[in-house]
């Protein structure tokens, strides 16, 4: 067999491999779509996708904090997570965040991000405090501009939201 014929066969095989790879990629993206990346906002906790649940809800909240939460964030994909932000009624930024998920935490947490992204809880900047516990086997964080005793009561009362 001539070298030209052998080279032609090699080229055809390479083109076939590339075409198959491209077809697989295109078909997969066309049929399944591309899920939104990163943290997404939702109007309320019921809109958080099922694959990210269960979402924890507090049995106890200080009276000055409003519920349902003002901010609802979720992330799907390889590192699913959710965050609920509750603030003083009529206030702007949430004073309490309850959530779970691997770093990076949502930007909406602001300074409180350092509380959950660092291994050292002492790194939590003032006036934020951070506690974490398990709900249904998942680690859930409670981060708030609240008294640590209030945070402990909130954490103890967390339960899976129906």
């Amino acid at each position: 067999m001539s070298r030209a014929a052998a080279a032609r066969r090699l080229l055809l095989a390479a083109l076939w491999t590339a075409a198959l790879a491209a077809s697989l990629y295109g078909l997969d993206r066309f049929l399944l779509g591309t899920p939104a990346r990163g943290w997404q906002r939702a109007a309320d906790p019921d809109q958080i996708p099922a694959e990210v649940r269960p979402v924890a809800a507090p049995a106890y909240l200080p009276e000055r904090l409003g519920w349902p939460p003002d901010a609802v964030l979720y992330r799907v994909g390889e590192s699913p997570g959710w965050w609920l932000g509750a603030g003083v009624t009529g206030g702007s930024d949430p004073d309490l965040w309850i959530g779970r998920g691997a770093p990076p935490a949502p930007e909406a947490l602001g300074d409180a991000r350092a509380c959950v992204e660092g291994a050292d809880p002492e790194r939590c900047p003032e006036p934020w405090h951070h506690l974490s516990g398990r709900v249904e086997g998942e680690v859930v964080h409670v981060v708030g501009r609240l008294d640590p005793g209030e945070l402990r009561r909130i954490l103890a009362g967390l339960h899976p939201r129906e």
Partner: protein
Amino acid sequence: MALVLLVANLLHGAVSLVWMLGVSRLAKPLPAELWMHLLGLTLVLPPLLALARLLGAGVGAEASLVRADLWAAWIAAEPAVTVAGLVLVGGTLIAFLVQEVRPLLARRRRHGRPPRRRDPALERVLQDVLDRFRAAGVRLPPGHRLRAIRLDTDERIAALEGIVEPAVVISRGLLDVLEDRELEAIIAHEVAHHVQGGNRRMVIAWIARAVQALNPAALVIFRMLVEAREVAADALAASVTGKPATLASVLLALHGPRRDYGGRGGPVARARHEVLRRAERAGVRLRVETLLHPDARPTAPAPITILATLSLLGLLWGIG
């Protein structure tokens, strides 16, 4: 996780098969050993990739060609698709059990184990063939010396038996019909099996296939590998002996009209046996055509084998 691994395995099998068929069409005729090597890889790689996935290796979802976890989630969420999938894998498992268990039982019922003897004349022919392989620069596997055994049966049997102490087994029924040059060709074919990995390689392939008993592509690929193994042994034997036509005539002698398919029974049984006979002839025709093809070569250059291996690995690695 189990569903994701199953879906990934099904995808690996399907993509491998499509890729192989495309390559064999566009780049034919593929060297026989390269074809056999690639088929073996398509069986062995998917379980290894599943193990790698369990250990945390693999491409991220965004870089994947096919996102097996999303497909698994979609299948789990669609009842009709879930049922269809269960039927597919269940049927495949049944086909696997039927393919493996039934022939085993039938063989045990029919044959028993005919007496075996060492045959000095057969040993001399084997040594001559081994010398020819060495003279052709073919490296024989290290380890136990290959033996020649004669089976005392009228059936026409030629095989490489054993894994630890392999032996070339030829039946009296076959020795009675072969000329000297044809005997040399058939022994060269069995020695070629030994050179190309022997029964050890097929055991590994069978285990890889058994682990993927739910995957229909794995069953198809295994059948293709069984045939490819014969074609590769034909090609190597023909290149060493320099007599492809002799080996082709031996194939026809082995699978000639005297082969008894037990065509007794009613019209349905006889029709079934006739179909089996023609199917076997079709398999022989493919081997004979391949032997006599002017461009047939047993091996591909090492860079081509490496390139093909990496291409297949890259494709399968991209299914994450």
